């Protein structure tokens, strides 16, 4: 018996012959936060709908804590808290009424409902909004009610589709803290467009494009890919590339515009000092030297727009 909380096995979903999601497989263990990235229409929400049993997969299966979603939907659903992209809020009810219904439907025992509602409100910072109609709450507070609804029964797996949309920066920080807190003992899957957010809250990243998984691995792998062994230098009197290549450790030099150069070096070399020395000796007029970071956006674009396959990193 393995202890995966979520197992997706070759999930495929066809919409009239077109594959919205094809052959997506992954697993998630307890205590992990998985970030789902992808351009619009990549199949993120469709995958989430299949994971939560809102949509039947055309092929493949989903197991939540070892329980098959198709064969035992009720038991599997009881372990999931889900916030869809469109918040499913009954706007004519008050926050308390709505959360009570959510708790009741998610099989919180009658005696614990009040407590569960209080805890969920406190965790999402909704304490002073109890008696307000959901309709009259601001967008950000409505989003918090949506999140409260997803965590009210303390589920094993929390699935949030773009949880930080419409929140102000302070609320976003609170929600991220909440996600990390929940993720410490449970499993969380979030989808988002905000790339730095993924780096902040997730341990694992999946990038999905055109229904296919193009990257699946730990966040560290992505970070390494991002920082890389590169230096960006700028000089007033740039030398020829051959001269730079003579410096120990430098493997590749790429001349950019206006005296700027990008220098790649070997894994264990640190040629920055040598480059500065050479620049002083030869009077190159060095005025800038910095590690060249590819932004996460660039990595994302590379992964989603490159046609050739990116080597898949294995999940730990």
């Amino acid at each position, binding site marked *: 018996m393995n202890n995966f909380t979520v197992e997706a096995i070759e999930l495929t*979903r066809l*919409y009239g012959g077109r594959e919205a999601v094809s052959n997506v497989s992954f697993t998630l263990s307890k205590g992990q936060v998985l970030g789902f990235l992808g351009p619009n229409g990549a199949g993120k929400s*469709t995958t989430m*709908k299949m994971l*939560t*049993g*809102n*949509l*039947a997969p055309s092929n493949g299966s989903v197991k939540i804590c070892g329980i098959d979603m198709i064969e035992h*939907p*009720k*038991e599997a*659903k*009881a372990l*999931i808290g*889900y916030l*869809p992209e*469109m*918040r*499913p*809020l*009954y*706007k*004519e*009810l008050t926050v308390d*009424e709505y959360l009570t*219904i*959510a708790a*009741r*439907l*998610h*099989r919180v025992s009658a005696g614990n409902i009040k407590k569960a509602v209080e805890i969920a409100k406190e965790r999402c910072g909704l304490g002073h909004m109890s008696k307000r109609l959901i309709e009259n709450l601001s967008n950000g507070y409505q989003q918090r009610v949506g999140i409260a*609804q997803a965590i009210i029964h303390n589920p094993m797996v929390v699935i949030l589709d773009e949880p930080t949309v419409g929140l102000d920066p302070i609320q976003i920080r609170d929600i991220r803290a909440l996600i990390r807190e929940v993720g410490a003992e449970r499993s969380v899957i979030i989808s988002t467009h905000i790339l730095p957010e993924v780096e902040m809250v997730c341990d694992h990243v999946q990038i999905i494009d055109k229904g296919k998984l193009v990257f699946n691995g730990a966040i560290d792998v992505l970070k390494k890919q991002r920082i890389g062994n590169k230096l960006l230098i700028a000089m007033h009197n740039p030398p020829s590339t051959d001269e730079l290549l003579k410096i120990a450790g430098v493997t590749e030099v790429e001349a950019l515009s206006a005296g700027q150069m990008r220098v790649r070096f070997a894994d264990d070399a640190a040629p920055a000092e040598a480059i500065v020395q050479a620049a002083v000796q030869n009077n190159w007029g060095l005025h800038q030297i910095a590690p060249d970071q590819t932004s996460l956006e660039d990595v994302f674009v590379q992964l989603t727009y490159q046609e050739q396959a990116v080597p898949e990193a294995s999940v730990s």
Partner: protein
Amino acid sequence: MIINVARKELKSMFASPMGWVILSLLMFAFGTYYLNGVNDYFAVMSGAMRPAERTGVTQFVGQMVYGFASFMVLFAVPLLSMRLISEERRSQTLPFLFSAPISLTEIVMGKFLGLVAFLGILVVFIGAMLCTLNIWADIDFGFILANSLGLLLMVASFSALGLYFSSLTQQPVVAAILTFVALFALMFLDRFFAGDPSNTLASLSLTRHFQSFSGGLIDTADIAYFGLFILTFLTLTVRRLDADRLRG
């Protein structure tokens, strides 16, 4: 679990003025009919000299009120049933129910029972109103019971059909109109076949099956008809919602 869904429906029904307004307006209309019925009873019976022309007060007033009630719910049920699923579809709240650990059958049954419980309030109130006749007359409680049961079954059938049409569309108004047209056709089907009462289609008419109840007769054939009617439309609704999950 079915109870929890039903409670949620009742809560939303009473959270907006809609539920209260419909309940009070209908009760006002039934109350007026009841009063008129009592007045008319004296007017008609004082003119009826021969014993054969005389009817009991329960039957006279009851038939008036229940006849009117069965006609009024034709308008009330579509208004109440229209939002059950279409509204959730439009405001995208269905995933809330779908991702909770409840089956589709439980969702549909819950919504159906919630609406029937709401309309049951009306049936109980009408029954209670007619029972007040007992203060000065000796009334036939069996007659009221049969009529109440008939009205409840009829209202439940209307609700099941309304629920199905509500599951077909995103627009509550479209659901209401479709429900009204379908119910209207089913109610007056037997009028179209007035010349040929033995026609099979005529026996599909809801009014015809309500007739025995309104005469004070509880006929198992009619109960079976209403039961099957309800079952058919609830099954269709479950299948419609299941199609959402399968086809997206």
